[in-house]
């Protein structure tokens, strides 16, 4: 075997040592763990850099547009808006806050409504989706009804919601519920129908029946689809919150947005939009990614 040279040294044949020749023992578990940690860190850093560049590009485009159009009332430059966001979040606005309770209370109000609608939708859509997916009788009764209601856009439900629930939180929650229900239901149903029949055979042969079958087999098997449904639903929910709040509420980010619009305060309007985006992203990360990590992250089911 060759004698080990130090890095940079020249070997007998004249080649410069660029890599230390590996021992047999270097591919042990610790080293491998080190390699995968490095890869993960590098991937994280790379994604962060590229993502930041993308967003910076957007900001530059925005800045350029606001210079070019010079319409401060419609398109304030990103510097103004970002300062607005920071000042509002740190509660150090020089100009008064004209939108009622503080921004955090408004965000919380919207967030609570989103969560309430989300929980209600999940509580109804997931069991119903599983049932309709696996039970032909139920499917033939319920599917036509649900498919008829599905095309009605969430916004169209708002007047009805106001009629039924008044100008209260409940109306907004109802609209959010409707918007999220269908996404969750259809995804759950698709997942329930897509379960590998062999898995169902195995489940039945190994004694799973009735509710146990649902809880221990059908539900876990459908989880990847359910998570997709949750993700889609959450995205739609935030949009509906804003639309619903603009019409039916006196608190929340949608309300702030509407107020800013009435006062032609474009910077505040865009600030509200940015906050909506950030909170929406944060919620998705919190709920969906956590659920993902605990389920299909562990099981590595490839769908």
């Amino acid at each position: 075997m060759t004698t080990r040279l130090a890095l940079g040294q020249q070997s007998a044949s004249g080649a410069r040592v660029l890599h230390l020749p590996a021992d047999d023992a270097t591919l042990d578990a610790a080293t491998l763990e080190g390699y995968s940690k490095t890869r993960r860190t590098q991937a994280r850093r790379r994604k962060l850099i590229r993502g930041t560049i993308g967003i910076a590009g957007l900001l530059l485009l925005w800045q350029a547009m606001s210079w070019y159009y010079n319409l401060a009332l419609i398109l304030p430059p990103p510097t103004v808006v970002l300062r607005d966001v920071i000042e509002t979040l740190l509660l150090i606005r020089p100009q008064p806050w004209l939108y009622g309770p503080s921004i955090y209370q408004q965000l919380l109000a919207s967030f609570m409504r989103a969560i309430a609608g989300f929980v209600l939708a999940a509580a109804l859509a997931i069991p119903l989706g599983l049932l309709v997916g696996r039970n032909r009788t139920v499917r033939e009764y319920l599917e036509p009804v649900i498919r008829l209601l599905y095309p009605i856009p969430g916004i169209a439900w708002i007047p009805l919601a106001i009629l039924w629930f008044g100008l209260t939180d409940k109306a907004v929650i109802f609209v959010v519920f409707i918007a999220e229900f269908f996404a969750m239901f259809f995804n759950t149903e698709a997942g329930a129908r897509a379960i590998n029949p062999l898995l169902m055979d195995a489940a039945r042969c190994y004694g799973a029946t009735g509710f146990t079958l649902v809880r221990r087999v059908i539900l876990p098997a459908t989880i990847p689809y359910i998570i997709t449904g949750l993700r889609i639903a959450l995205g739609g929910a935030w949009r509906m919150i804003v639309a619903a709040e603009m019409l039916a509420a006196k608190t929340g980010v949608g309300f702030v947005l509407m107020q800013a619009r009435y006062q032609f305060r474009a910077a505040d309007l865009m600030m509200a939009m940015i906050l909506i985006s950030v909170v929406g992203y944060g919620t998705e990360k919190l709920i969906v990614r956590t659920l993902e990590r605990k389920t299909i992250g562990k099981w590595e089911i490839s769908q």
Partner: protein
Amino acid sequence: MALMNPSSVTGELHASNVDPVIRAVSVNHAYESNTGWVTALRGFNLEIQHGEFLCVLGPSGCGKSSFLRMLAGLMFPLEGTLLVNGHKITGPGLDRAIVFQEPALFPWLTAAENVGFGLEMAGWGKSAVRARVADVLSIVGLSEAASRYPYQLSGGMRQRVAIARAWALKDAAVLLMDEPFAAIDAINRVSLQNHLVRTWIAEPRTVVYVTHDIDEAVFLADRIAIMTPSPGRVATEIRVDFDRPRDRAVPAVAMLKQQITGIMHGLERSA
């Protein structure tokens, strides 16, 4: 023509004075396909004794898998009787533990949890389940894989977990295996067959093993039921009395294989 081999017989495994565990009497089955009715089984008769390893050997499409699924309770014959310990089969149950061609493990459970699934469903207590699972996993040789998820296991290991899941059901009257190694590559197949035999030696059970592989049948079985091509029935049964584990290279084994091959070719020609 039944070939009888006078070598030693392990007495406790072939207690023929007890009622057969499984009885199939005049089973007829057909199904509707795009091109009309297809007869899968016609006049299928078979008896399986307690404690024996029975192979059902037949060409593709002869109805052997259908027969096994009927035993599992996943299918019902159009005509005929199927009895397990004297009772008619009305559906799937924990008295018949099945291993499919694909492992069919639950991806959200670890290997140990998969193996213990049937026992949980049977109502066993947690510690009893744990003990039995550990037992079975060590018999099957997969103890270190216990806390891994199926995706972390190779195809062969997954199938062994599936076999462990079936074997774990101590009180099952019979183990049903539907060509469990057909989807495994040839090299691993041999090692898996060896594993299976070792398992059976450690804890003997009644096994109904469906296959189209003559080598496999001769290596594994106490008795081989050879089926005709579709529509299938049991044409002949052959006792295999070699000691286990068997040496595939021994000339007697090779001769038996040749004879069985001859029989099957004959059946095919007269089909």
